[in-house]
């Protein structure tokens, strides 16, 4: 039991300043969350250009993306954007791929017992699983608008995010021998899951993407938009070599959804 409560000691000097900073952070967060939908409507990629008007490196990459992708959706930048974008993009994809939907539904149903055997408390897990399945069942109804509205209702959307976080954590723990090599700092895989995967609002890294895409066997292509020399936003596929059904755009600290041409 020594692993999830290292703890203690505040920094004695400057506590009041800390409070101010925290308050300021909260206000900024609230401003962001009020102004950006959890999942936005489709928009042209050229809408990104206004954000980088004096930035030739990014503008070149946007032009290249525009050739490969017809549009994008923005996700709220709240630290859950990878999970939320992934879920929405994949569920939308499944609406048009009935066979895969059936497989996924089976897999999702089975995941509950797998996670319980992984050590998650049954009654907390059940809540998330049940709500997750409600949203999964919407895919079968085939109404894109309804799925979109549901993803913008915090009560449903956040349950989906939590459940995917738990699936990710389960996968990391199941294959801890492999994943432990990718964890920075002096932490075990379990500690990493408690600190960086299971809590809401913690940002996702490669390791989260690899674990989730492997757990669900869903190919994800991430286009990285950064300051690198290349004239295109480099693509990385997870897990490597698998057919891609979810396309995401990464800009430092944030993921959005892409739709290929």
């Amino acid at each position, binding site marked *: *039991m*020594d692993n*999830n*409560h*290292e*703890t*203690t*000691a*505040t*920094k*004695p000097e400057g*506590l*009041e300043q*800390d*409070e101010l*900073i*925290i*308050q300021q952070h909260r206000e900024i967060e609230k401003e962001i969350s009020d102004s950006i939908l959890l999942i936005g409507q489709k928009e042209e990629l050229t809408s990104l250009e206004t954000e980088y008007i004096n930035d030739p490196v990014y503008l070149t990459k946007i032009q290249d993306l525009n050739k490969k992708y017809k549009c994008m959706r923005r996700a709220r930048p709240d630290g859950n954007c990878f999970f939320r974008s992934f879920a929405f993009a994949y569920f939308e994809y499944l609406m048009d791929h009935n066979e895969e939907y059936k497989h996924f539904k089976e897999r999702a149903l089975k995941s509950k017992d797998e996670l319980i055997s992984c050590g*998650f*408390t049954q*009654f*907390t*897990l059940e*809540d*998330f699983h049940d*709500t997750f399945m409600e949203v999964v069942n919407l895919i079968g109804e085939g109404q894109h608008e309804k799925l979109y509205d549901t993803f913008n209702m915090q*009560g449903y959307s*956040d349950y989906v995010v*939590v459940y995917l*976080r*738990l699936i990710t954590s389960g996968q990391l723990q199941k294959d801890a021998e492999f994943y432990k090599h990718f964890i920075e700092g002096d932490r075990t895989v379990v500690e990493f899951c*408690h*600190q960086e995967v*299971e*809590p*809401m609002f913690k940002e996702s890294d490669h390791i989260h993407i690899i674990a989730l895409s492997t757990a669900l066997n869903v190919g994800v292509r991430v286009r990285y938009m950064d300051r690198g020399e290349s004239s295109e936003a480099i693509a990385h596929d997870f897990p490597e070599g698998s057919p891609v059904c979810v396309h995401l755009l990464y800009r430092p600290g944030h993921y959005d959804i892409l739709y290929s041409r």
Partner: protein
Amino acid sequence: MAGKTPSEKRLHKELISLVKEPPPGMVVDVDQAEQNLNVWTINMQGAEGTLYDGEQFQLQFKFGTSYPFESPEVTFVGQNIPVHPHVYSNGHICLSILTDDWSPALSVQSVCLSIISMLSSCKEKKRPPDNSFYIKTCNKNPKKTKWWYHDDKV
């Protein structure tokens, strides 16, 4: 269950589970919790064989409307606040799962177990080094404190 918010439903489930399988030495005040689902008091006995053997403590849990997405506010209350390097004399507890590392998959039960474990592993009864300064300057709500967690193996 019609009309209950997801947060209320969840708290009900947690209350039932806490009564059915209480963590060792802990008893939740059920009547109080049923009257106001957002504030629970848990009576706690210091575990045998630890520095707190024979002592009685009270823990208070306050739940916001976003629970379990937001962590509960957990403090020691009452006459006897355990003397421990992570517990301030005003009852505030420095425990990472109560702020940064909270996850909706945790529960009242798991918080209780962490607190038991925190007390049980204590080797010397003393207050945090910055206690007198902290209790003068802190916010009433411990979640508003920016805690500096560091693993000092206490």
